[in-house]
C-alpha cells in the first residue's frame, strides 16, 4: 500500500495527470459549450481526430508547427459548424449527425493519409514536429509541483486556462448569457430578441475549436505523428465528464481532471503486482460510478438539466 502512496505523491504521477487530462479537459469544455447551447456535440471524437490528422499533415508538409496547429483547429471548427448546420438547417438529429461525423472523420482521415503518404497506418513516416513545451522561470524550484509543471506542453497550459476562460465566458459575458438562455429555452430567448441560430452556430464553432485543440495536442504534443483512430475513445470519455461535471465549468474541470488522474493511476500502478485487467478498468469503473452518482443527484434534486440536454 505504501508503494501506491509513493506513486501518487510523486511528481512523475502529477506530471502524467496533467498530460493525460489535457485532451479530456479541452474536449470536455468543447462538449460543455455545445451542450449549454442546446446541441449535443457527440462528434467531439471525430473533431479531435480530424484536427490531429490535419495538424500533423499540414505541419509535415509546410514545415510549420504553428500552421499545422491552426489548420487542425480550423478543420475541427468547421466540423462544429457543419454539425450545427445539419441540426439547424436540415433538422437532423444531433446525435445521428454526430455519429455520422465521427464515421466520416475515422474513414476520411485514414483515406487522406493513405492518398497523401501511401501509408495506411498513420503519418509516422512524415516529420511534423511538436508544439513547444513551456517552462516558467523559477517554477522548477518548487518541490514536487515544480517538476510536474516544468516542461509541460503549451497546450496543457491552455487546457488549464480553458476552465477560467469558459467560466468567464458563461457567467461574465453577454454572449455567455445568450448561450445559456438559448440552451435552456430557445423560444423564450428568441422572444427577447436573441439571435438564436447565430448563438448556436458560434457555440458549436467554439466547441469544435476546443475539441480541435485537444486533437492537435494528441498528434503534435503528446506524440509527434498521427495514427489511424488515435483518439481511442477520448472524445466519449470527455463527454462523460461534461455530464458528470453537472454542465458547469468547474464541475467539468474537476471531472475531466478526475478521469486524467484515474488513467494516470492505472498507468503508474500497472507495473506493481496488481492484475492488469483490474487496473485498466479503473477509468471505466470511475466513469460508470460517476454517471450513476450524477443521475442519482439529479433525481434527488428533482430538477431537470437544460431541456435540450437529453442524452
Amino acid at each position, binding site marked *: 500500500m505504501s508503494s501506491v502512496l509513493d506513486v501518487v505523491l510523486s511528481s512523475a504521477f502529477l506530471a502524467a495527470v496533467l498530460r493525460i487530462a489535457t485532451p479530456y479537459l479541452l474536449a470536455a469544455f468543447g462538449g460543455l459549450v455545445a451542450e449549454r447551447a442546446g446541441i449535443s456535440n457527440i462528434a467531439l471524437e471525430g473533431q479531435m481526430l480530424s484536427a490531429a490528422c490535419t495538424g500533423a499533415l499540414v505541419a509535415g508538409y509546410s514545415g510549420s508547427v504553428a500552421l499545422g496547429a491552426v489548420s487542425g483547429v480550423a478543420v475541427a471548427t468547421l466540423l462544429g459548424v457543419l454539425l450545427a448546420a445539419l441540426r439547424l438547417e436540415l433538422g437532423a438529429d444531433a446525435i445521428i*449527425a454526430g455519429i*455520422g461525423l465521427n464515421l466520416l472523420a475515422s*474513414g476520411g482521415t485514414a483515406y487522406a493519409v493513405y492518398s497523401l503518404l501511401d*501509408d495506411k497506418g498513420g503519418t509516422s513516416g512524415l516529420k511534423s514536429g511538436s508544439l513547444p513545451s513551456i517552462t516558467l522561470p523559477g517554477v522548477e524550484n518548487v518541490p514536487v509541483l515544480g517538476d510536474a509543471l516544468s516542461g509541460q506542453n503549451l497546450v496543457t497550459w491552455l487546457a488549464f486556462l480553458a476552465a477560467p476562460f469558459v467560466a468567464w465566458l458563461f457567467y461574465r459575458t453577454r454572449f455567455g448569457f445568450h448561450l445559456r438562455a438559448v440552451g435552456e429555452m430557445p423560444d423564450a430567448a428568441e422572444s427577447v430578441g436573441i439571435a438564436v441560430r447565430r448563438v448556436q452556430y458560434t457555440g458549436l464553432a467554439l466547441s469544435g475549436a476546443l475539441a480541435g485543440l485537444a486533437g492537435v495536442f494528441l498528434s503534435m504534443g503528446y*506524440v509527434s*505523428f498521427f495514427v489511424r*483512430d488515435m483518439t481511442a475513445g477520448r472524445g466519449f470519455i470527455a463527454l462523460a465528464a461534461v455530464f458528470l461535471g453537472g454542465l458547469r465549468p468547474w464541475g467539468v474541470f474537476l471531472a475531466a481532471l478526475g478521469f486524467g488522474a484515474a488513467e494516470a493511476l492505472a498507468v503508474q500502478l500497472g*507495473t506493481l503486482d496488481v492484475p492488469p485487467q483490474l487496473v485498466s478498468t479503473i477509468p471505466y469503473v470511475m466513469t460508470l460510478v460517476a454517471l450513476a452518482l450524477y443521475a442519482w443527484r439529479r433525481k434527488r434534486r428533482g430538477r431537470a438539466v437544460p431541456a435540450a440536454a437529453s442524452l
Partner: protein
Amino acid sequence: MRYGRSAAVVVTVTGMLALTACGGSGADDSGASSSGKPRIKLVLNGGLGDKSFFDSAYAGLKKAEKDLGYDLKVVELGSDRTKWEPGFEDAASADDYDILAAGTFDVTDYIGKLAPEFPDKKFWVFDAPVDYSGKNGACSNKCENVYSVTFKQNEGGYLAGFLAEKLVAAKALKGAESLKKVGVMGGVKIPLIEDFVVGFKSGFQAAGGKNADVLVQYVGGDKPFGDPAKGKEISTAMYGQGAALVWPVAGLSGLGTFESAVSAKRYAFGVDSDQYQTLTDQAQKNTVVTSILKNVGNALYKAAQDDQKDTLKYGTVSTVGLAEDAVGYVNDDHFKELVPEKIRTELQEAADKVRSGSVTVPSAL
C-alpha cells in the same frame, strides 16, 4: 419539416457510410488472372500500414508474386469486428482466387467454417491454427485443404530478455549504466502476447537476471494496438521506475515508446519488423538496440514455394521459430555499435542453443 428532418438524417448517414466504405476497404490489385497463374487472395481482418504484422505478410506474398509468378489480391476488412464474418464469406465465395490467406487467432473460426464449403480452394492461416479435430463445429472435412503456420514468438522473447539482461549487467548502455530494470509493454494480456513476455522473462533469467527486475505492463483500453499516446505514457512510467530499456509488443502503440526513449535518454527494442528501418527520426532510431523479428512474410513466401512444388502439407499446422529463421533479431551495424562483441557472441550462442533444441523456451500457448 418532418420529411426534411428524416431526409437529412438519411442523407447524412448514408453519405458517411459511403465515405467510410471508401476509406476502409479496397482491393490492391483488381481483376482475376487470365494467365493461369495461381491466384492468392490475402484477406486481412484489419488493414495494411501497421508497420509490422500485416505489412510483413503482405511483403512476403508480394515477393512471391514477383519471384514465383503468383497473382496477389488484397482485401482489407478494417478493424470493425462485425464486418469480419460477412467479409470472409464474401471473399471465400467469390471465384477469383485459388488460395485464400488470412491471419490471427480471430479468423480461425471463419476459415474452419468456410474451408469445408469450398473444398476445391486452398486456405492458408498464419499465426494461429484452425481446429483440425473438427469437434467444435468447424473443420467438418478435418480442414484437409487448410495449411496453418504458427510462430514461436517465445523464442524471440527469450533472445530479447537474454540480450536485455546481458546489456544491463555489463552496464553497456550509455547513460543507463546504473539501472538494473527493463520493461516489456504488451498490447493486451492475451496468450499470444503473453508468449512474448514468458519468453522474455525466461531469457532474462537465463542470462542471470532476477524476475523482479522485469516490469510488465499492458496498453489495454479501446485501441490497445493503436494508441501511441498511451503507449508513450506507459513507457515514460517504466523509464521513470528505472527501466534501462523497454520492449514494446503493442503494434502502433509502440511508436510512443521510441519517443519516450528519446526524452528519457534510454533504450528500446523493436518488434516484428526492423523498426530501426521503419522509424524516420534519427534520435528515435538511435534508441533502437535491435528488433526482434517475427517474420510472417518469410513463412508465407516459403509456403508459396512449397505449394508450387506440391510439398506444402495441407491439413496440418507447422510451427516455425528460430530454427526456421521465422523468428530472429536484427544484427546490423547499429546493433554492433551499441552492443559489445562479447555480448553479441553470447547472444549468438544462446540462439544456437534454442535452435538446436538444447534449450527449450517455456510458452504461454
